[in-house]
């Protein structure tokens, strides 16, 4: 890794790129599978291409400060164009490639796009559809010429044409590009990434070279990344994580990025490349595990036995071995055998044999899933960050992995918990501003320069950050202790027998809960025990089922009490609902989030019962069937007390 901080020469991405090209130009910078063969570009190749693209853009009239839209799958020349734009002091704006034309319109207008680089005909067509609404759009450059023969519009160009133009420009003005690169400053905007805009319009997050270089460098040092890492670049270029891993860290450490052949070949390409550094959202890890399990069920009995035997060993000691904790010698021996027969081949099939560090983020990952990967020896970790912080706030240090925390503040990052529980962060990786939105910028960065994440969390005793909820959902118990309903519900939902949970407690003495059982899992469980039941409502009322759920609730209580801050949120009483919460009955949103207020109102009589100490409560509810008819479900619900644990008050 080049010595950053020390020399001023390495403070923008173009400077880093030309540094690699000069000092280790023959090393591989990028690979792409094309026509069945992995093609490589060395750092000098990349530098040459970037120079050609940059000069070509300049020739076409690209100005310092212009924004250039990039739309497409992860392709080497799309990454190169990012660097080329930065060379000229412009700002690349990657867009989500699977967005339909109308979704792109807002961003293209907001960013005042004059130049767009797109992958192929599909994307060109989208832009042409919007052309009338984009008076500022002057040039569209495409990367893949397939199907483009009949597009004669003068403003559409092949990237080859652009580069040819650039090469001539470079010959005629040899010092031009170096001069442009020299004009760049670390504080310039390096890239603009749009937030997804789940609430309101998307906002352009302006991030400087300095921010991304600091984040990339901090992360690389934290995980001791070297120039020999291989990474598969397959997540959308518009997403902050891809920009950090595939662009910023590759530029900072000089490792190799690998672009898959197409979206559908990612699994094959993963196996062929065998990355050493890997990122995937929890969903991907879950799908992989499901595939493995399904295939194991079809395996011969001997193989199945072997698999289950060694997985038991792995569950017992795999994660501990990975963390370097003491493990009995016999287990170590068994684990080594398991590695030979099961884990090794399994990792090979998954394309994960060479992984040194793997990260996941973006959603809560189930503890079983997380432990599975760690137990077979894959160093899977979690991180926390958002677009506004270059996806760089907290990282899990090797050897200190907890499935329910996102790790410790990353090097150079200051994390503070506000009085309302909101996580505030400060550091070099913060956004400069929201594009043309001073109001939003002012709202999200407070007077002391902290970015307000909108997430609520707390530090545990070992200094690990736990994310509990969106800050606006967090309330207080009557005694003033923090109450984070989502956090408790998630804990409950991690049990396979619990499908949905709704907890109450804001401004009350204690916390109580409604539980929805998972009919598949609990039904299966009941069948294996020979428990007869006639239907959902009947099953929910069985004493055995209450016992099962009670165990889950008490386990959650034990976990909560161990977490100090949330010890007061232990669930004192709970009941199992007689019907499933359903979007058709307006109890859930279409994306299956609980509509807390509505549920509390609809089942007010049950909440009263929970807090009044009653043992049973009669309830009759109207349900809507799929064909629109309505019916009634009535039941006498039992209410159980769950065991709680004494709260140890910490001496102040």
């Amino acid at each position, binding site marked *: 890794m080049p010595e950053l901080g020390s020399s001023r020469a390495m403070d923008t991405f173009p400077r880093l790129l030309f540094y690699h090209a000069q000092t280790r130009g023959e090393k591989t910078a990028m690979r792409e599978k094309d*026509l*069945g*063969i992995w093609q490589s570009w060395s750092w000098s190749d990349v530098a040459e291409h970037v120079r050609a693209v940059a000069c070509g853009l300049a020739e076409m009239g690209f100005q310092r400060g212009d924004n250039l839209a990039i739309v497409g799958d992860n392709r080497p020349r799309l990454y190169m164009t990012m660097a080329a734009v930065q060379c000229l002091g412009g700002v690349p704006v990657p867009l989500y490639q699977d967005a339909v034309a109308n979704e792109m319109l807002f961003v293209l207008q907001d960013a005042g796009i004059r130049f767009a680089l797109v992958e192929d005909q599909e994307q060109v067509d989208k832009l042409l559809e919007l052309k009338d609404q984009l008076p500022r759009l002057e040039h569209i450059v495409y990367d893949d010429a397939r199907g483009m023969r*009949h597009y004669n519009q003068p403003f559409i160009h092949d990237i080859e044409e652009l580069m040819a133009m650039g090469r001539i420009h470079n010959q005629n003005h040899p010092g031009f590009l170096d001069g442009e690169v020299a004009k760049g400053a670390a504080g310039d905007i390096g890239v603009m990434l749009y937030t997804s805009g789940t609430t309101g319009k998307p906002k352009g997050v302006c991030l400087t070279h300095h921010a991304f270089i600091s984040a990339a460098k901090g992360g690389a040092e934290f995980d001791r990344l070297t120039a020999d890492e291989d990474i598969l670049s397959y997540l959308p270029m518009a997403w902050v994580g891809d920009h950090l891993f595939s662009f910023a860290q590759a530029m900072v450490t000089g490792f190799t990025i690998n672009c898959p052949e197409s979206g559908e*070949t990612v699994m094959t390409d993963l196996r062929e490349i065998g990355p050493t550094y890997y990122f995937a959202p929890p969903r991907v890890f879950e799908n992989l595990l499901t595939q493995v399990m399904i295939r194991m069920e079809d395996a011969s009995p001997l193989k199945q036995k072997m698999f289950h035997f060694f997985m038991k060993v792995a569950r017992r000691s795999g994660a501990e071995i990975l963390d370097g904790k003491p493990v009995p010698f016999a287990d170590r021996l068994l684990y080594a055998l398991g590695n030979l027969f099961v884990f090794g081949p399994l990792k090979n099939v998954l394309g994960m044999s060479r992984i040194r560090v793997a990260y996941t983020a973006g959603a809560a990952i189930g503890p079983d899933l997380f432990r599975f990967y760690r137990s077979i020896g894959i160093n899977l970790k979690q991180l926390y960050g958002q677009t506004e912080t270059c996806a760089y706030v907290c990282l899990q240090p090797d050897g200190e992995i907890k499935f329910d925390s996102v790790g410790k503040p990353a090097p150079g990052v200051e994390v503070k918990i506000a009085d309302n529980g909101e996580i505030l962060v400060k550091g070099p990786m913060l956004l400069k501003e929201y594009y043309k939105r001073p109001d939003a910028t002012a709202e999200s960065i407070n007077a002391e320069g902290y970015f307000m994440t909108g997430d609520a969390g707390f530090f545990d005793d070992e200094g690990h950050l736990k994310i509990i909820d969106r800050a606006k959902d967090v309330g207080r118990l009557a005694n003033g202790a923090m109450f984070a309903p989502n956090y408790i519900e998630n804990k409950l939902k991690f049990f396979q027998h619990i499908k949905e949970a709704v907890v109450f407690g804001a401004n009350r003495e204690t916390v109580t809960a409604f539980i929805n059982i998972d009919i598949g899992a609990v039904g299966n469980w009941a069948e294996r025990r020979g428990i007869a039941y006639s239907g959902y409502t009947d099953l929910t009322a069985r004493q055995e089922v209450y016992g099962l759920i009670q165990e889950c609730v008490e386990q959650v209580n034990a976990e909560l009490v161990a977490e100090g801050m949330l010890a007061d949120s232990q669930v004192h009483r709970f009941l199992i609902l007689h019907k499933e919460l359903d979007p058709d009955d307006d109890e859930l949103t279409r994306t299956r989030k609980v509509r807390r207020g509505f549920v509390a109102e609809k089942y007010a009589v049950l909440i009263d019962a929970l807090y009044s100490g009653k043992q049973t409560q009669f309830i009759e509810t109207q349900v809507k069937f799929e064909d629109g008819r309505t019916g009634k479900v009535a039941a006498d619900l039992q209410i159980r007390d769950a065991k709680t644990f004494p709260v140890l008050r910490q001496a102040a």
Partner: protein
Amino acid sequence: MSGRKIGDVILDLQNISLRFGGVKALTNISFDVREHEIRAIIGPNGAGKSSMLNVINGVYHPQEGRINFHGEERRRMEPHMAAKQGISRTFQNIALFKGMSVLDNVMTGRITKMKANFLEQAIRIGRAGREEIEHRKKVEEVIDFLEIQHIRKTPVGRLPYGLQKRVELARALAAEPTMLLLDEPMAGMNVEEKQDMCRFILDVNDQFGTTIVLIEHDMGVVMDISDRVVVLDYGKKIGDGTPDEVRNNQEVISAYLGVAH
């Protein structure tokens, strides 16, 4: 379709009659195919569409009539000779090697272009190795063109029907044909698969200038993508012309919709 120019007649069939014993499959049919065009043959079940294709392909030999291909009167010939002349085809009921991978299946499309003999290929000496690389390159281009990279190594038998059809098209394309015969390329497909197939057929025609003769049941598809249409019914030609002409042809309408008695 601005870039494509329809050329002269390259295949001319005149007064073709084909009999199997006493059954008349085709009776006195004449039509022609022009270079670079998409020519459709339609008709109800048993109209003689596949027989017509098999005549062009050299599988069946008509008892009467003349076939002129590229200005040459065709004598009795076998399908492999048709292949050598640049005619490739796909089949109504997929005819792939089910146990072999997609890649290997498509490679078989190159067989007429291979010069190395059986022995050289078996032990991979001399020109066989060099040739294989060359052919593989061509095959990869086809795989890329039809977007089937993700199933390159998958045995064909494991693929869904729509993809198998696409692999068959890939094999036909690997032979770099000048004329492509497609026997119901869209039969049994869902709407999305049909759309994909249409796009590929148009792309092949546009990009490589390949002349395409296709049989299809789905009238909507035929009318959308073909330049000219021949309509057969009970082995006789009852219509010939542009999609619009055919659509308004009274005889065609009766054949398809039935007539009031």
